[in-house]
């Protein structure tokens, strides 16, 4: 078991190292083979570990990393059912993304850099999933940030791409500060850095410290998971290659934040305020993402905003103390979002880099295979009854509803409204892309390589059927996921609702979704040139508001970036150049003038020097005399 876990981390890292050191001497095919092989091997190992592991958590110590006095950090792994699921999802989705990438990137240059960072990304994500102490998690956390930066900015010569990478880096870096502080707090207050130790010691924390650590972890998670108010980097991250978007949005980066909160769930549970804050962030982000996705035109931006919104549901579930529900949605989301992104990549390739959904109409005839695959993803995203997304989202809403606190009822209402928007924007995207009048030059689409579509099949099947891993009780299911995650600290078995309530919720939810799908059909299935939903200035204003992501970027630009730059310019021009530099200059000029005067004294005449000597001697004598006289 120890070997399996060690190899699980070692394979992607070795792959990345091989590519980094010898990649330039390898052919493109060799590079792709190394990258894929290492990740697929990691997937097989993750599967082995999953099958071998019992219900109890295992720790593996791989040696000392560094030590300073009593502070020492090990390279240790902590493998429990949570990490088992996470490693499985990460390696599964990344294996598919790697295989997909071999076809996607074949025509692009610089495969070595791409696959090296992709492997490193998988390694870092596995570190986050299995690391046994906070500092080791932090290492993975930072490598993920680095890889996302370089992968988003992969086509750095394209205008704006490098900026998008930098934006992602800076936004997540802001959250990393909170994470670092949380680590320091854990060390000073608990004298513990190991995951198990912190979770065991959580109950001994004072409520203030627990809330503090909880809020810091929440902020760290907000940055990585692109929740409000740090969600701005995710839509811009679409500048990267599409498989990268799939990897970041589906399997890895954005779920890292959610996973961090799950990891330290006992700490978070200590404070009711933190729980409420998490659900509040979740609900606000759900609405923000849903409304923004409703009016976007770029297919990748729609998917990006929908990711922000769906991750918000995971936060909401965590806030409602439903860890299993959150994990359930994480899994289904990983499947359908990876499917949608990879599918979008196929469509974009087929249409020669066309991103605007309103210029894609009528693809049902042109890309029949994509139609069915994309439909699977859309159904699951839109929580169409009986798909994976339906069960996971229903579960989250039910958990929120069951919370005794009155605040959660309000959150439940808002989340339900947002859940109505989700099918609307999902099917708006779907109908606009695949229905309507086909373009005249319909035979001009580039061929999609078989390898790309093959990888979509397992994802499509899983998006539809992922609900079976946690089939609700009233359907005769056994809640396998709940049982599997029971050993995770904090994942206490929730009070099971009556089956009547469950049926009512599901029926209402299904009805709502169907209505929205029909509404989307009515609004968007006709042929249309552009988004003609609006008529009055009022709705147009709203549309522009949503299209720009609630002007959040604008807000940061106006309130933070520009004032900060003005402050910097002030400090530069006035304080640095004006005060410090100028002050020093003036001082120097003063001494130079003084020196000019003093220079005149050095006449070079010996007699003058003797005179000065005598004068000084007389002065000293005079002083001594005066002292003696007046004593």
């Amino acid at each position, binding site marked *: 078991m120890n070997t399996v876990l060690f190899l699980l981390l070692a394979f992607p890292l070795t792959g990345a190292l091989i590519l980094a050191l010898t990649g330039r001497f390898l052919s493109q095919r060799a590079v792709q083979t190394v990258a894929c092989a290492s990740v697929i091997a990691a997937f097989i190992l993750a599967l082995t570990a999953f099958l071998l592991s019992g219900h109890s958590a295992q720790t593996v110590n791989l040696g000392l990393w560094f030590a300073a006095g009593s502070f020492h950090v090990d390279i240790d792994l902590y493998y429990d059912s949570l990490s088992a699921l996470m490693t499985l999802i990460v390696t599964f989705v990344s294996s598919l993304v790697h295989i997909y990438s071999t076809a996607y990137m074949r025509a692009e240059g610089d495969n070595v850099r791409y696959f090296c960072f992709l492997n490193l990304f998988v390694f870092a994500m596995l570190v986050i999933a299995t690391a046994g102490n906070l500092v080791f998690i932090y290492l993975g956390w930072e490598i993920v940030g680095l890889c996302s930066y370089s992968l988003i900015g992969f086509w750095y010569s394209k205008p704006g791409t490098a900026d998008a990478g930098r934006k992602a880096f800076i936004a997540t870096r802001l959250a990393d500060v909170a994470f670092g502080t949380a680590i320091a707090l854990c060390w000073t207050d608990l004298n513990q850095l190991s995951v198990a130790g912190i979770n065991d010691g959580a109950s001994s924390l004072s409520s203030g410290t627990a809330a503090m650590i909880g809020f810091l972890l929440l902020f760290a998670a907000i940055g990585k998971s692109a929740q409000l108010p740090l969600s701005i980097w995710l839509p811009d991250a679409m500048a990267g290659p599409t498989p990268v978007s799939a990897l970041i949005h589906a399997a890895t980066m954005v779920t890292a934040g959610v996973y961090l909160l799950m990891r330290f769930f006992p700490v978070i549970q200590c404070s009711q305020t933190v729980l409420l804050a998490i659900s509040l962030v979740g609900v606000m982000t759900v609405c923000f993402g849903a409304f923004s996705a409703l009016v976007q035109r770029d297919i990748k931006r729609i998917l990006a905003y929908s990711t922000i919104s769906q991750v918000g549901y995971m936060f909401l579930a965590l806030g409602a103390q439903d860890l299993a529900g959150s994990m359930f949605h994480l899994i289904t989301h990983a499947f359908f979002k990876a499917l949608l992104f990879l599918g979008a990549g196929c469509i974009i390739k087929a249409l020669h880099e066309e991103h605007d959904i309103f210029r894609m109409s009528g693809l049902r005839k042109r890309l029949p295979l994509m139609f069915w695959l994309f439909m699977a993803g859309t159904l699951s995203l839109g929580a169409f009854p009986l798909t994976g997304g339906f069960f996971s989202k229903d579960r989250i809403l039910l958990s929120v509803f069951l919370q005794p606190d009155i605040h959660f009822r309000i959150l439940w209402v808002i989340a339900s409204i947002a859940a109505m928007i989700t099918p609307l924007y999902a099917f708006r995207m779907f109908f606009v892309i695949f229905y309507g009048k086909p373009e005249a030059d319909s035979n001009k689409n580039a061929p999609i390589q078989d390898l790309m579509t093959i990888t979509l099949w397992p994802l499509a099947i899983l998006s539809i059927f992922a609900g079976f891993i946690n089939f609700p009780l009233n359907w005769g299911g056994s809640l396998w996921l709940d049982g599997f995650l029971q050993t995770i600290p904090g994942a206490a078995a929730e009070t099971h609702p009556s089956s009547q309530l469950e049926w009512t919720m599901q029926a209402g939810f299904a009805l709502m979704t169907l209505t929205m799908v029909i509404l989307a059909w009515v609004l968007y299935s006709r042929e249309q040139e552009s988004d003609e939903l609006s008529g009055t200035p009022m709705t147009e204003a709203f549309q522009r508001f949503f299209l720009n992501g609630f002007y959040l970027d604008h807000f940061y630009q106006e309130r933070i970036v520009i004032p900060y730059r003005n402050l910097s310019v002030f400090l530069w021009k006035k304080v640095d150049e004006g005060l410090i530099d100028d002050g020093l200059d003036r001082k120097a000029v003063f001494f130079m003038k003084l020196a000019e005067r003093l*220079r005149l*004294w*050095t*006449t*070079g*005449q*010996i*007699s003058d020097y*003797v*005179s000065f000597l*005598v004068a000084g001697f007389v002065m000293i004598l005079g002083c001594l005399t005066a002292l003696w006289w007046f004593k």
Partner: protein
Amino acid sequence: MSIPFAHMLFLATLLFVMGAVCAMTRRNLIMILIGVEIMLNASGIAFVAGSMRWQEFQGQVMTLFVMTAAAAEIAVALALIVCVQRRTGSINANRYNLLKG
């Protein structure tokens, strides 16, 4: 003792000031050297006077030291003067202004 202590000190001071003025105002190196010698001897008189006044012999010993130092100084200084006279052809102190800043 017939000569009062104050008189001897007055003589020493007078000689010292005259020597200093000589050293400061004259431009001839020899004359400057003579001024310095007079100052040294003035200090010798002050030492001897002190020695007589307090009936201690250290003052006289110090005078012997001063005379020895003065003899050595004169020897070196005269050698230097000869040297610079050869180099510049003059013993006017105003000609030696290489130290001017």
